[in-house]
């Protein structure tokens, strides 16, 4: 704040004058910050977007050995009903040489911390390399998903076994809401 043209008339005068300017400046700064917040917050996801942030899935429609692809927050998610063979293959390789070591059980844990069910695997269908959607190929090298874009190979637990992808297919957070239903997100 620029000084006024008049000279100071003593210590009290200066302090009071400065105080008024400082107080006004501080109040203006607080007001500006408070005004700024709504304009920043308005770009956050709106209420209707937030309401669609979870997806409910009915598992009874998914046959053994089949998978469905559902949309969650605008992204694809695999919900796979694994066969006994797929489960044992996944568990067998729990301590094999893995680029991104994880046990199969770790990849089934629900969002609440409870253990999941081995026959239900819920994966985000996005290759961790550059984001393409992998396909489940029966009889492939590791029995699981294969990404056609750059040849990443995943096993029956969705773990990266060969190829350029750096990490396992991400788990989508989910909970069982009943015997045959889950909520993702």
């Amino acid at each position: 704040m620029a000084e006024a043209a008049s000279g100071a008339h003593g210590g009290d005068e200066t302090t009071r004058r400065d105080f008024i300017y400082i107080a006004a400046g501080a109040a203006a700064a607080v007001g500006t910050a408070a005004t700024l917040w709504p304009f920043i917050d308005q770009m956050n996801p709106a209420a209707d977007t937030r309401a669609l942030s979870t997806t409910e899935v009915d598992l009874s429609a998914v046959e053994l050995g089949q998978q469905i692809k559902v949309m969650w927050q605008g992204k694809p998610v695999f919900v796979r009903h694994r066969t006994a063979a797929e489960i044992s293959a996944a568990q067998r390789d729990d301590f094999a040489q893995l680029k991104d070591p994880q046990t199969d059980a770790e990849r089934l844990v629900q969002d609440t911390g409870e253990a999941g069910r081995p026959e239900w695997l819920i994966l985000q269908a996005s290759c961790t390399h550059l984001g393409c959607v992998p396909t489940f190929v029966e009889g492939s090298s590791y029995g699981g998903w294969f990404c056609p874009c750059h040849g990443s190979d995943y096993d029956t637990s969705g773990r990266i076994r060969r190829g350029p992808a750096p990490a396992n297919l991400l788990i989508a957070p989910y909970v069982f809401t009943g015997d045959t239903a889950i909520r993702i997100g």
Partner: protein
Amino acid sequence: MSGPSTYEPKTAFTRWLDRRLPIVRLSYDSFVAYPTPRNLNYWWTFGAMLALCLVVQIVTGVVLAMHYVPHINMAFASVQRIDRDVPFGWLIQNIHSVGASMFFLAVYVHMFRGLYYGSYKAPRELLWILGCIIYLLMVATAFLGYTLPWGQMSFWGATVITNLLGALPLVGESIKNWLMGGFSVDQPTLNRFFSLHYLLPFVIAGVVALHVWALHEAGQNNPAGVDVKSKADTVPFTPHATMKDLFATGLFVILFSVFVFYMPDALGHADNYIPANPLQTPPEIVPEWYLLPFYAILRAFDFNIGPIDSKLAGVLAMFASIGILFILPWLDTSRVRSMRYRPIARQFFLIFVVVCIFLGWCGGQNPGRILVPATFSSNLSWVEGGTVEQTSIRATGAWEDAAAAAEADLRERGATAVAITRTSPTEGTVRGVFGGTELTRQVRAPTQDELEVAIGEVKTEVGDAAPFFNVERHIPFTFTVTRLSQVLTAYYFLFFLIILPLLGLREKPGRVPDTIAKPVIDGQVQGAS
């Protein structure tokens, strides 16, 4: 302006910058050291308020544009989504709509200030004209923006105004369809209106930059209307004018906030909460309050002027009412700038202000509304009893002659009442009643509609007793809203075209002080207007 720049860069970085892009020097010269007349009153703070309004509208507008969808099926719903679901969307939307009104409130005060203190006079003619251009752009922006929510008033207001363009001879229809992108206001119209509404405020910002540049070239006008003569007349802009502007803007923002938080819909129209329906016209179509005076001028022309039909006359008058402002610097012939020293001009100016306010009121009224109570009356006469005789008329020459002849014939034979009905250009019937009693009744009513109802009631009451009625109607001269608008519009144009030019030549002004500083230091002028 006055003297060379006094800015001295203090740090290495500011010296480096000053050599390459003297933006700090420009800001310092324009808004810190800039010499400002010391006698400016609060009417001079509205420029700062306008700058704030422009920034507020642009910021809130850009943010709203992140959520608004310019499609006829989704526009209304997207505004609802902003109101309900977008975080603080209701607040940003309220600020934007109230902000438009506050913008116009400030601009009208700013313009009236310019008129009163002669800020449009040499050497500030271009400053004034740039201001008029800004105002015109503001009106266009506001009109375009109002269509975006796609409510009933949005749609029908757009329809009415685009139809006005159709009034222009020869090219009107083509221009209208070109503007609308179709044959009626529809999706193409909405889409392009959105694009233009986003564009124009930045054009306004550019013209504002020119406006401030022109201002700084000539220097501020002041309430005394005298030029700055020496340093004694001025104070540095910062902190003197800056703090005063901030304080006055604070009061302005308080008023703004009262509307935003407690009366957000007070300045709007309920019908705009009804989604647009091209098949149903609302009972009244009115623009927002700040455009009402022009609406009144437009509707005042309900008569043809020679070859110019009333619709075109209204459109021309409406545009002329803004256009005339552009040439004001050359219409006002007075040597004295400020109306503080022009006592006669001041009276006419005050009347002008009142006229503008009442034009605004007229714009919001039903044009046929009768302001001074008048009585419509009608005389009915009929014959009860008596015998009816009916003959057909076949005119070989002029109808009037044949009809008059038939009537005269019956009257000669003693008919008490005669009625002629014309069924074709050359044929009709004449009926006469012989004998019986002639009765009359007079009915009165305050409006024409009620008069017709009253006439109908009498006819029903008498019923079959009378074979026919003769009805004489007296329509009095009524002072309607349209008449008032005509009177006010006349004064509006007279003020600029006749009064100001003549006053300049004839008026004896008061004693104008020599310098700004003198009356101020002498203690004469303290906040007087």
